[in-house]
Every structure is written in C-alpha cells, then in structure tokens.
C-alpha cells in the first residue's frame, strides 16, 4: 500500500533525522564541569562499556534470584523462575545496554521529546499528540485491570528498567551527559507509547489524500487505475495455485483533463519513484520435503530504519515453568517479537492493509470547533489542552486536541476538518501474546495464540519441528459499508462507520501448502480472485515476493546457507522486466547515437545488483527519467497537494499498451510519444544524468558500492557515532533493497532450521550495546554488510555455553 509505505518510510526517518538534524544546529553548550569530569562525566561511559566477569544487581519484585549469562556475542541468556521474573531481568539488561534509546523511543510516542531535546523537537511531539498516540496509550493502560497478565507484565518490565536506572546513579549514558539531562523513571504506559510509535511507522497511510489529489488531476477512473485496489501483478502471500506471477495486461484508462493542482511526490528523499521498491520486509519458510536435510527452514528479514543502536535487542529467556525462547525484542516492549523456541520459529512482515480512514466532518466553528454534526444532531468534541514543556519544565507551546467518536479531529490542507480513525488508536489486542505464543509447540497453535493481535497488522509466518509451515495476515481489518477505504467519506452519518472486522477465518492464510513453501514481502496478501473484499490499495509492487518464489521454486533441496544467501540475493525481477523493454525500444532508434550508446552500456548489465556491477547506475537513472516523463500528468509544478508516483507494477501493466495516452509527454506539444519513444528517451536521458552525476561509465564512479550504501545513523544523528557509507549488495526491488538515503534496510536477519535440535543464525546492523565506548556498539556491521550470519547460542542452563560463555550477572530480589 503506497499510503502505508509512505507511513513506513517517512515515519521511520523523522525521529532521528528531524530531531538529530536540529540537534546538530548550534545550541547552548552543555555545562563543562559535569561533562568533562573524569569520574562522572562523559569519560565515565568507558567504565560502563564492558560488563565485568561477574556483576550483581537487585530488582524489586523478583520472586527468586535470576542468572543472566552473556555469550560471546553479548546476548543475555536469562534464567528465571517464571515469566514475570524473566521480564524484570529483561528490563534490567535492556536498560543497561540501551537506556537512552528507551527514553527517546517512549518520548517519541508520547509526544514528550521537547522535555528532553527542547523546542526543536516540537514538530515531532505535535505530530504524535495530534494523531492521538499518547491518548490511545493512556486509554489502553487504563483499560487493563490491575491484576491482568498484561498489567503485571508491564509493571515487571518497569521494575527491571527502573532498577537499572537507579543502579546507573550518577553515571547515566553518554547522550544524557551531552544533553545535560537525567533519565526519567520508566512507567508501564511507556511501553505502550513505544508500541504506538511503531504502529505509526508501520500502519499509517494517506491513501485517501493521495487518491483525491490524483483524481483532481487525472479523473476518478484514472486515479483508481494508478493506485489500484488490486495489484496489477498478482503474487499473493496466500498461494493461489499459480506457478508464476499473473500480470494484468489490460489497458489503463487514459488521463482525464483536470483543472485542480497537485504535486507528485517526485525526485527528492525516499519518495523518489525508485524508492517505492527500495523498502520492505521479507520472510519465507520451506517445508521439509524441499530442504536438503529434511527439516523445515524459516528466514526472517524485517526491514526498518537502520540506527545505532539498533531497533532490535537480542535475548534468550528461559524459565523454570517451560518458557525457552530466543530472538529479538524491541527495547521497552514485552517478550520476543521475532525468534524461535525449541519447537518452532516465526517472523513477521508488515501487512500494509488499509487500517486508517478519514472522514470530512461538519463542525460548528471552522476556526475553533467544539461540536460536529452526525445523524442530524450536534455532538460535543472531546477537547484536551496539551502543554509541551522544555527540559526546564517551561511551557514552550500549547495545543488544543479534538476528538470525535471516530478519533482525532485534524485540519486538512484545504482547511476542512477530518476525523481520523485508525486501528492503532483503538484498544484491543493483548500485549502478552508473544510470550503466550512462545509456549506453543506447533505452527497451528502458535498462529491461534496470535489471533488476538490487532495492530499493526502483520504477516505472521511460522514453521515447526513437525515440518508444518504456515502464515496468516493477522490483525484487525475493518469492514466499510462503502466497500472502500481509499476514498474519504463524509462523516455526517454513522452509517459510514466501520461495520465490523474480518473474522479470523477470513484472514489471508495458508497452512502446509501443497507448493511446499511460503513467502511474504509486503505484497497484496490474497488474490482478489479468491477474496474480492477491500483490504487496501496501492500495494507494494511484488518484486521481492516474485524473486523469493523464483528462488524457492528453483531449489528443491534448500539449505540454511542458501536461505542466508537469498537474503542478499542481487537479482531484480523489476530489472528483468524493464531492461528488455528498454533495449527493445532503443533498437527502434538506431539513428540516435545517445540511445544506441546507452543501450550498448545497459546491455552489458546482467541485471544483478552486485556491489561491483557498474551498470545498475544507468538502469536506475533511466527508470527515474522514465518515471518523470511518464507521470507528467501528475506534474510537481502544478502544486496544490501531493501525489505519490504510481507503483512500478502499474508501469509494467502499461508496457502492454504501446499507444496509451499516458506515454505522451504533455510538454512536447506537436509530438505524441508512444511507449518505445518514451523508453528510448528515458534511456538516453538516464545516460546523460548518470554521466553528469557519476562521471564516465568506466571511470570508476559507476561501481554500485560507490553509489549506493547503507547509512546507519546514531539515534541523535551524531556523525562520529554513526556508521556511514557501509557497502551493501542489492538495489531496487531486490530482496535486500537499499534506499537512496541508505537509512532503511534489513534490521534483523535470521535463519532457523527446525531439526531435532533447533539451530539458528542471525545478525543485525549494530551491536547489543548503545554505549559508544563498548566493543559491542557496532561490532556486527561488517558481518551484516557481507550478508553473513552468526550462529545463535541456545543453552539450556547458565553453564551451557561452554567456551562461548561471557560475563554473568546475578540479579537478586531487592530488599
């Protein structure tokens, strides 16, 4: 879903980018005495960088001592009497390694960054509060009975984090010292703020806005086709019996003349048309009959913003009452989010379904609305006056937030007031699902344990030791009376409100499919031929899904190492489709030297985004030029709104219609371009652009690793603490897509083999510690860059690590 993707891409970036970028502006100097003090100041973080061989700690509420044994990768293996004690210990060790990240994350979700960073963070805080994220978190916590498992787990996590904050005492992490602030006490609601922010990253969308702006420019019918509810290339998550993707080859309706103005989100930042296919997550699983060893295999590859420290934290939880789970958690969240047990393994990708709707409301006073009209009567808006404070407690700004029965009421660009309804803002779902599911022993039981998960909706893939592989797109998918969610509704009647949700049986899913493998890569989950009901629109082009399925169909003896290699496979189904089209078109213009030269260079490319290739640069420049020319009807110069460039799957559909009006460039009056002419023009323009930007084709500047790389920024964007220009293999629409900014990508890679003894491999770009003086701050980046994985240790006892054993932390109940 293009809208959801906009949410994903933009949302992940702003926190460090905006806050960090503004932090780099000159500001007040920190107080030098405390900062430079060699005992308590900035240097003291060196003293906290590595765990001593034996350390102790105390946590209130522990029912029994907990042993935490670190391994040689700095992963804590937590051995506790019960799950709540394990949660307390997890809070403690996460806070030891990631305390500032914890604080930044909850404050971003709570709209309280200004209290840490000052007024420069106000725009981020306003965004969170106006969307209703902190309001929803507070309501969700209030709805939890005091003795509910969720509340007790949140409190246990808080106990652990706060115990570590107390233990850190006068030596808080580096960032606190630079900012001259001290850590705030962790409250149970902070975990909910953090999850709200993650939902914002994964499930926010602007489908209605985008569709409306496009319709003003090219008409409703064309807008429907450019941002379709059904992907023009069908390679769904729920297998549909096809052995290859199904392409929609019908003509696109032509653009209708429009008088309104809008701006295509074009060639800057990640919204570059090529960026559409540069983001996303993958997971896949293979049944035993298609693996070399006869055991089920599962690969997880969630893509998120790349930061130092990483968005993930690796841990192993073992309890005396049967929990034994390894994987990654989001610092500040409950349980292991992606991982494996001794019986099964699972991973997630974002479903990209449309779970966010806008309703234009009639209000009593457009300047300061206090009521809105529904079903012929006025209803009071719920108002909340929100002060934003700086680190000194001074109010730097005040907002009045408004809420209708649907959700937050916000003013749209045109001045109209809109209610926003979003599944993330509505209570429901359980917070302890991952912990409960980790006790399941079969894939089916695991999926059933997770069925109450509501938001953000995820494609949950699981494989078990019995050889079953299964997937379900799990979450709350609303039913709309209109049958569509990509069009803004008038809010004057409750008849337009959501009328229910998809039932679990209706969710896209598959268990033990005949094809012997399953894969998801954010594509449309279910073939509309099987389920014509609206689930979303403007879906991701399914290039990555096509590539995974190509690889898995071609390999009937998959090994764990092959699964690892696939994660950085350089093949690009998009290039496989568009390169021949460009070359065929170019061959029709032998009289144009620039076209002939560009075609000769492009033909030298094997369409693989290897680090050393020197032709992907030309392909991408040509595709960018193609996008600019093809979608000129959505011209950025006609600015009055914003429109995403249509997905490349739509362009693929258009290739079948060489005389379509869309190929014509409006600016070239007197000439009517057709498909081949436009493709040849784009190729020639791409060559010109590539030379202008990167020099002559064989002068060294076109090498892919000189052009595209990962930029893993410190969460406050301090350059010295970031890892920049990290070479990666992959590009547009590959399994390891890389965005132009380089700040988005595979955030955790995992392969699990479910044999008699479960084996796991994994890594993420960064390290376990957020302390820049630690050897574990960025120690995995080289390995991640090379597509390599570590062997993950799964000891049954604290002494089970053998030669891989590291420091031990003994946690006792606090007196």
């Amino acid at each position: 879903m293009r809208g959801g993707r906009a949410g994903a891409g933009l949302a992940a970036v702003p926190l460090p980018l905006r806050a960090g970028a503004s932090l780099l502006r000159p500001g007040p100097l920190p107080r030098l005495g405390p900062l430079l003090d060699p005992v308590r100041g900035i240097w003291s973080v060196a003293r906290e960088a590595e765990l001593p061989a034996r350390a102790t700690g105390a946590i209130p509420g522990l029912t029994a001592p907990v042993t935490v044994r670190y391994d040689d990768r700095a992963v804590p293996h937590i051995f506790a009497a019960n799950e709540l004690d394990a949660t307390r210990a997890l809070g403690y060790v996460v806070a030891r390694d990631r305390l500032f990240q914890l604080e930044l994350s909850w404050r971003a979700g709570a709209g309280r960054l200004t209290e840490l960073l000052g007024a420069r963070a106000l725009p981020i805080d306003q965004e969170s509060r106006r969307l209703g994220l902190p309001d929803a978190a507070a309501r969700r916590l209030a709805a939890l009975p005091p003795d509910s498992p969720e509340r007790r787990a949140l409190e246990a996590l808080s106990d652990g984090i706060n115990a570590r904050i107390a233990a850190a005492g006068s030596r808080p992490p580096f960032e606190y010292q630079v900012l001259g602030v001290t850590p705030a006490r962790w409250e149970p609601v902070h975990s909910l703020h953090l999850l709200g922010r993650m939902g914002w990253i994964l499930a926010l969308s602007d489908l209605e806005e985008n569709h409306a702006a496009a319709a003003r420019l090219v008409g409703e019918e064309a807008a429907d086709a450019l941002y379709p509810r059904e992907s023009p290339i069908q390679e769904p998550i729920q297998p549909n019996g096809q052995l290859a993707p199904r392409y929609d080859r019908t003509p696109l309706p032509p653009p209708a003349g429009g008088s309104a103005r809008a701006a295509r989100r074009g060639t800057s930042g990640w919204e570059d048309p090529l960026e559409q296919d540069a983001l996303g997550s993958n997971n896949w699983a293979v049944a035993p009959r298609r693996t070399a060893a006869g055991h089920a295999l599962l690969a997880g590859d969630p893509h998120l913003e790349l930061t130092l420290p990483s968005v993930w934290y690796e841990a192993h939880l073992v309890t005396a009452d049967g929990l034994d789970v390894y994987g990654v958690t989001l610092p500040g969240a409950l349980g292991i989010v992606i991982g494996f047990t001794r019986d099964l393994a699972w991973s997630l990708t974002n479903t990209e379904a449309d779970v966010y709707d806008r309703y234009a409301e009639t209000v009593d006073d457009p300047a300061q609305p206090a009521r809105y009209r529904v079903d012929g009567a006025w209803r009071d808006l719920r108002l909340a006056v929100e002060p934003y404070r700086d680190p000194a407690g001074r109010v730097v700004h005040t907002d009045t937030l408004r809420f209708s029965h649907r959700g937050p009421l916000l003013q749209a660009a045109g001045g109209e007031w809109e209610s926003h309804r979003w599944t993330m803002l509505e209570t429901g779902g359980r917070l302890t699902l991952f912990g409960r599911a980790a006790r399941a022993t079969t894939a089916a039981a695991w999926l059933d344990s997770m069925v109450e998960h509501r938001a953000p909706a995820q494609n949950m893939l699981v494989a078990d030791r019995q050889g079953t592989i299964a997937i379900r797109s799990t979450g709350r998918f609303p039913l709309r009376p209109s049958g569509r969610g990509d069009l803004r509704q008038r809010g004057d009647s409750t008849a337009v409100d959501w009328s229910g949700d998809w039932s679990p049986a209706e969710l896209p899913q598959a268990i033990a499919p005949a094809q012997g493998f399953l894969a998801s890569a954010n594509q449309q989950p279910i073939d509309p031929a099987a389920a014509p009901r609206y689930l979303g629109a403007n879906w991701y082009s399914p290039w990555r899904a096509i590539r995974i399925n190509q690889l898995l169909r071609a390999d009937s003896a998959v090994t764990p190492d092959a699964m690892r290699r696939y994660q950085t496979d350089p093949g690009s189904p998009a290039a496989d489709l568009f390169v021949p089209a460009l070359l065929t078109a170019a061959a029709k213009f032998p009289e144009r030297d620039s076209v002939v030269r560009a075609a000769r260079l492009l033909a030298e490319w094997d369409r693989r985004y290897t680090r050393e290739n020197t032709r992907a640069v030309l392909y991408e420049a040509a595709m960018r030029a193609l996008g600019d020319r093809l979608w000129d009807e959505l011209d950025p110069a006609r600015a009055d709104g914003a429109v995403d460039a249509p997905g490349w799957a739509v362009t693929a559909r258009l290739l079948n219609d060489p005389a379509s009006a869309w190929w014509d460039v409006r600016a070239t009056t007197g000439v009517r371009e057709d498909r081949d002419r436009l493709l040849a023009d784009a190729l020639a323009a791409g060559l010109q652009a590539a030379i202008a930007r990167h020099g002559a084709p064989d002068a060294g500047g076109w090498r892919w690793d000189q052009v595209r790389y990962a930029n893993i920024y410190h969460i406050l964007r301090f350059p010295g603490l970031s890892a920049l220009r990290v070479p990666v293999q992959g590009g547009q629409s590959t399994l390891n897509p890389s965005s132009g900014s380089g700040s988005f990508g595979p955030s955790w890679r995992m392969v699990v083999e479910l044999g008699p003894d479960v084996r796991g491999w994994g890594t993420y770009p960064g390290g376990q510690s957020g302390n820049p003086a630690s050897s574990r701050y960025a120690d995995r980046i080289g390995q991640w860059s090379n597509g390599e994985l570590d062997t993950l240790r799964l000891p049954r006892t604290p002494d089970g690590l053998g030669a891989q054993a590291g420091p031990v932390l003994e946690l006792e109940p606090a007196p």
Partner: protein
Amino acid sequence: MRGRGPFELLLLAVLMAVGTWLGGWWAVPLLAAGWQWLRPGSAWSIGSAALLGWGGLLMLLPPAPFGRLLERLGGLLSLPGPVLLVLPLSYALLLGWSAARLTLAFRKAGG
C-alpha cells in the same frame, strides 16, 4: 611569587584526584582556592596539579573502551581522538589556575 616543589605539586595532584573522585569536579576550584589561601604561590602550579590529578583519573579508565570513546568522539568533532584529551586536561588546568588567581587577588585585596 613563591614556587612549589615537586612533592607539593604531587601531593596537591593526588588531593585533586581524590577530591574529584569523592566530590565531583567542584573539588578542583575548592582545593585550588584553599591551597592558595594557606600556601600562596604560583597559580599556574596549582593549575598544573589539577591537570595532573585529572590526567591520573583518566589513566584509571579502562584503556580499550576509553580509546574507542576518544575515537568516536573525535569523529563527532572531525578531530583525531587523542586531541580530545586536551579538553579535560586544559579545563582542569584553567579551573585550578583561575581559582588560585582569584584567591590570590582576594588575599591581596584583604591585605
């Protein structure tokens, strides 16, 4: 102005280090002022003792993490990491010196 012998300097440096360890950075100006009041002499030598004291404390830090920290902070300021050592050392020097100078001025003003 009276000079200070190496033993006095060393003693003062140790006091500065212990004072900072126990009480924080404020120990430097307080000790500098107190010492100068009791044993008036070169303010620079008191500053030097503060520098030595803080230098000793920095040497107590675990070398590998400290080296990584210097390197990364150096990257932050586009400077070679070891150059950053100048910051705490010169701060201690100036802090001790300025407190001693001020104390001397007070002593003179007070007759």
